[in-house]
């Protein structure tokens, strides 16, 4: 058992927590899509990847990384609209079938990016090269900044879902789709908007993560498994559960790496997931 240095422990917990906010953004998109549409979106990680790739192109064309935070989610959201309408709508509410359909979408996205962008890992320059001393480490200020941006977006999402009429319609669809339909809510429009919103959240996650993780056509695989664990543990469709689970898992992952080997840490994450599901089979916050 290695000795535990307090400053190292505090650093790792802080680092995990900060990254947790960005992961929460991506996982919230996944949770929303499942909650409203009953779609298990296996392509969510690849939408995140496309967000990162497009950010690189926006930077190349405009010379301004920050523009990509606005442009990329809009583009992805617009692309999600026909995907939902023409590919996914016939399968909505049938999770097993949607898994197969979205795996197909994921492969198509990957191969299109490989054919156009290439198979090389591309380095995204740090758009905010400020260094902060965090427990004796020259920590990237950009990582703190993206945590702050993620928090702002999550607050905006909360405001949209809880304080606007359209958000109330989305939440109504999550709680009881049939009743919402019976009340005259156009569930098709809600589903289309939700898929676009979920995709846009994944895309923003990809844009923000690009300078941290580097850009690669298979980078979606790095986050999709963690996002699924978060969504399952948080409670399928529960936005509050997703947010809390994202912060909890990322912070735990950071803290565990001080005493566990990488393989043990991975096993520990699954053990925690199983334990939560044993006592709360529908996740921590599912009703």
């Amino acid at each position: 058992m290695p000795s535990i240095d307090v400053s190292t422990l505090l650093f790792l917990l802080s680092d995990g927590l900060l990254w947790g906010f960005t992961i929460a953004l991506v996982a919230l998109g996944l949770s929303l899509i499942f909650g409203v549409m009953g779609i298990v979106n296996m392509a969510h990680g690849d939408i995140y990847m496309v967000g990162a790739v497009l950010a690189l192109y926006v930077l190349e064309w405009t010379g301004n990384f920050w523009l990509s935070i606005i442009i990329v989610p809009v583009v992805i959201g617009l692309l999600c609209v026909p995907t939902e309408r023409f590919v996914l709508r016939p399968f909505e509410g049938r999770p097993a079938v949607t898994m197969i359909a979205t795996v197909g979408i994921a492969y198509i996205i990957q191969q299109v990016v490989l054919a156009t962008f290439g198979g090389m890992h591309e380095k995204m320059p740090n758009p905010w090269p400020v260094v902060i001393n965090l427990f004796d480490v020259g920590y990237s200020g950009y990582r703190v900044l993206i945590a702050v941006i993620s928090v702002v977006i999550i607050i905006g999402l909360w405001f949209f879902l809880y304080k606007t009429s359209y958000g109330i319609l989305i939440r109504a669809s999550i709680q009881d789709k049939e009743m919402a339909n019976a009340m005259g809510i156009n569930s098709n429009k809600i589903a289309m908007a939700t898929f676009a919103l979920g995709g846009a959240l994944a895309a923003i996650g990809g844009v923000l993560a690009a300078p941290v993780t580097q850009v690669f056509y298979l980078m979606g695989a790095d986050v999709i498994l963690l996002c699924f664990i978060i969504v399952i543990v948080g409670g399928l469709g529960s936005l509050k559960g997703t947010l809390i689970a994202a912060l909890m898992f990322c912070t735990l992952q950071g803290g565990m790496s001080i005493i566990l080997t990488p393989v043990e840490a991975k096993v520990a994450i699954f053990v925690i997931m199983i334990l939560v599901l044993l006592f709360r089979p529908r996740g921590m916050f599912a009703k």
Partner: protein
Amino acid sequence: MERNVRLKVIGSVSLIVVLLVTMLVTACAPKSAGEEPIKIGLLANKTGGLAAYGYSHEKVAIAAVDQLNAEGGIAGRSVELYVEDDESKPSVGATKFRKLVENNGVDFVLDSNSSGVAVACCPIAKELNTIYFPCSSATEISGDKGNRYIFQACTNVREECKGAAKFAVDNIGKKWVTVVVDYSWGQANEEAFTTYVTQNGGTVLASIRVPLGTSNWLPYLKGKIPADAEAVYFANFGSDFLCFLRDLYAVRPDIEKLGAVYAISARDPAELGAPAEGLYCLTSYPTRLAGLDTPGNKEYRDIIGVNSDGLEIGTDKYFVLAYDWAVWEPIFALKAAIEKSGWTSKADNPALIETLEGMHFEAGVKFPQGDMYYRAADHATIAGIYVEQIVNGELTVAAAVPASEVVYTSLVDRTKEPF
């Protein structure tokens, strides 16, 4: 009317019978071996984690076969190349190897940069009586996982670490930490580097293994590198390398760095910035022509379309050069060995293998990396290596290690294995 229809049917049937008979006769006609092309299969990592390497290997293999055919082929026979994508996955690679041999009827198979794919294909090569030149540096290929049909086309991890260890201790530091990606290639680097650095008077204070595909290396580095460590030996590539470099700089900006082969392959050194300044990296082929400025190497670069700085002509992007030579050279080694042994078909494989065992090749356009040979005992490629360094944002060759200094005692003796 009825008569016309009958005539049409008889005419059509007759035509089909004539065509079938012609096809049958053509297929059964004895052909001399000289008329049949020699078929070479290429297992390229066209998709998956190593997709960038597959692109360059395919391009180089096509160029080599074109060059060979332009010079009259092998023993008067033309050469055909069949390419399959192994998706950088061992299970897919093994299936594609069988497809190349059983469906396409290839005589020889080259490549796969993936250690997993190469190791998975070794027993299949023997089973299918097919000589295989994997282009992966896993030590096991010229060790316990190889067999008499396998010739490791590139230098292996043990040679690379042995060659670099003396330079590392004499010029970079004596107290080391190893940081590797946690799979067979990384583990082999950790083991070999530790062994040879210790033999040269250095010590390894800590060994850190990190999962492949890690974007945040801070949890693995913070608090894990002893304060008195002078240098880090790392084995990673792609996004792992970029993230490692950034995070190591955050934790220990002062520490010296030496990377395994491939770390900086196809990277613009200037773009890597301050964290990479002064970084050393092993390679078996210098990125810039200035590092190996021979007429043969220059001609090779011209043929494969790479300029003197390592940029691909046409795209102006850095080309993955590290083991490209190890796709190019086996094609010309085969030509020399086939013409020497009189090989005409797979029935002659034992004679061809015996010819290749211990066969030496001289530097030139066909062997641009330099003089090399296939060691008879373990079928390892014995060739020199280089240590590159980033100085003022440019790659320079800090040291050239001759083949004699990378040689280690073979772990096996293939020459005693039955065919």
